């Protein structure tokens, strides 16, 4: 299949995800959680997806896996479009997810072995009991859990260990692609580093491709090859990880990067933060034109008229801003 090494593993084309919200009796309005995002992820690459709460980053991850049926748009895996029940089920053996909260994403009534084994049962991947057991132990070994943990329950573990169980479950079907939805944000700093390293090691060992969703920009920068910045359902900027930190072009990315608290007092004191005024508008009442214009220090009347096009500013650096040429 892979005659071309550069062909992306995952292609997302103009993905839209609207939710109907009841606004009165018999009245609904669409909440545009994701409003036309396109990107691709190469094999073995990690794409970081950052943005503030409510920007739609988690929804993107879930829509790709068809946990929500996308309103419109396409998801392509390895050159084939994911469409229809059978294709979706098959796709889910290739693409899995690690969830944010290791406390609520594991069933408290199941043992660790059953949690990790469930995807194997659902997709009938093991022909007999012995094979299943061996596979579970192998997975536990991958994520640094001992075999004696197999018969325990999730509540007996610390946050970091629970996240390891969640990762083992995601690895069970032998996927190529994992959506990691804020996998380390519930963990303490010292534990966070352990889990991040494990993601790195698993990628090297198993050749995995990640979509890494997070709001902690220091973590995303560390783990990602490229980073996409989302705001109110749109991707506003996409570039190489180092590039987007050093030369952000979109005014939102600029303020986001400058707002990261740097753990170095001298830099932190000298750092000129671009503090945005106001809050993120509700996606139910998204501004016309450019979604960011209500908080943008550079907004003009033109920004209210048309949605800015997402175009390449320099090689591999995409940005959606009307005034990108003038303000940089």
């Amino acid at each position, binding site marked *: 299949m892979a005659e071309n090494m550069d062909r992306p593993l995952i292609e997302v084309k103009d993905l839209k995800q609207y939710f109907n919200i009841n606004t009165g009796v018999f009245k609904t309005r669409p909440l545009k959680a994701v409003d036309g995002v396109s990107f691709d992820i190469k094999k073995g690459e990690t794409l970081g997806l950052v943005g*503030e*709460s409510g920007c739609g980053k988690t929804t993107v991850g879930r829509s790709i896996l068809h946990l929500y049926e996308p309103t419109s748009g396409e998801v392509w895996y390895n050159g084939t479009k994911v469409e229809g029940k059978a294709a979706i089920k098959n796709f889910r053996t290739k693409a899995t997810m690690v969830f944010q909260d290791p406390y609520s994403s594991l069933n408290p009534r199941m043992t660790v072995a059953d949690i990790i084994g469930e995807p194997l049962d659902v997709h009938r991947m093991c022909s007999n009991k012995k094979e299943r057991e061996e596979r579970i132990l192998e997975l536990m070994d991958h994520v640094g859990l001992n075999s004696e943990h197999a018969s325990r329950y999730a509540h007996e573990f*610390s946050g*970091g*260990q629970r996240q390891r169980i969640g990762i083992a479950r995601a690895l069970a079907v032998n996927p190529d692609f994992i959506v990691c939805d804020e996998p380390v944000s519930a963990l*303490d*700093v*010292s*534990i*966070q*580093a*352990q889990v*991040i*390293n494990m993601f*790195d090691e698993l990628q090297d060992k198993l050749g995995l491709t990640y979509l890494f969703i997070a*709001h902690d*920009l*220091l*973590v995303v*920068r*560390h*783990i990602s090859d490229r980073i996409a910045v989302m705001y109110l359902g749109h991707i506003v900027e996409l570039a190489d*990880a*180092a590039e987007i*930190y050093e030369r952000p072009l979109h005014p939102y990315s600029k*303020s*986001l990067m*400058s*707002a*990261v*608290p*740097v*753990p*170095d*007092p*001298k*830099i*932190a*004191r000298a*750092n000129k*933060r671009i*503090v*945005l*005024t106001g*809050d*993120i508008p509700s996606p139910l009442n998204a501004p016309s034109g450019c979604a960011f214009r209500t908080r943008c220090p550079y907004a003009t009347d033109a920004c209210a008229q048309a949605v800015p096009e997402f175009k390449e500013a320099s090689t591999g650096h995409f940005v959606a801003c009307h005034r990108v040429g003038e303000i940089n």
Partner: protein
Amino acid sequence: MALLEVQDLHTSFFTDAGEVRAVNGISFQLDRGKVLGIVGESGSGKSVTAYSIMQILASTGKIVSGSIKLDGQELVGAGEKVMKTVRGNRVSIIFQDPMTSLNPTYTVGHQLMEAITLHTNRNRREARERAVEMLRLVNINEPEKRMKQYPYEFSGGMRQRIMIAMALACEPDILIADEPTTALDVTIQAQILELMKSLQQELGMAIIMITHDLGVVAQMCDEVIVMYAGSICEQGTADEIFYSPKHEYTKGLMRSIPSADTAGKKLQPITGTPIDLLNMPDGCPFAPRCEGAMKICTVSRCPRMEINADHASACWMNVKSGIENGTIKIEDVTIQEGGEA
């Protein structure tokens, strides 16, 4: 005299499983107009320290021993009557979660005015004026209109501003901020931190900033305390702690944070998991996870030692290097099993 003086504070929770020593003999001082950061992981005792100062511990919690002096006045054992004059008036606290710290059934104005009338002898009209003034101070637009709204009508960042307005309404000497921005987004966090910093300079109060985020500490704090398992590992000025850490835990913490330099490289995590507070070891609580742990670390806890005027640490490694370069004489070091040197 220091504004706040905490001496050898021990706070425990008496649970069915046994005594949990959440705060285990900590001492520090806070001067007027300074920002003190307390950093540590979950379960390190940083919040319990704050709750002990305010004496708002859960019913199973108790200050076992030690002293907390506010402007020379002893608060431990002073009684509820005295504490009522302290809380809100002289020491205020804001909590992590602005979503649950406001009462959803009252308007924001009502809650602000309640705090003001309770702690000062202003009448309702004066309290209303003060409340509006406070909302304006924390940059809330149209404060008169906002007074009549309920908490659900505000975003997370605005609710945290209201909490700050409420905490500052009676001009406290000390503001304790318990993870004030952890529940907020990065750009909103920047707004709130900027606001706290400018209010602190304007009003000249002292802040105790409790956080797990070393980035927030670097941005806000003059002095830093690093806590682990209920004890202070290290304390000193922000520059000393960040640029020349003298405790293995602090060093490990600094190494484990991702940065521009670590991209594409392995992070250096601290191995293992935090210890169980029910089964505290005799020696240094960090010894089971410490790469440099020596024999002495597992049997005896290192006492607090001055590194210089701005820096103190409790780590045997400093004694070791002191002996090696001749600044400490080995005869001067006496060790008691399970106790302090």
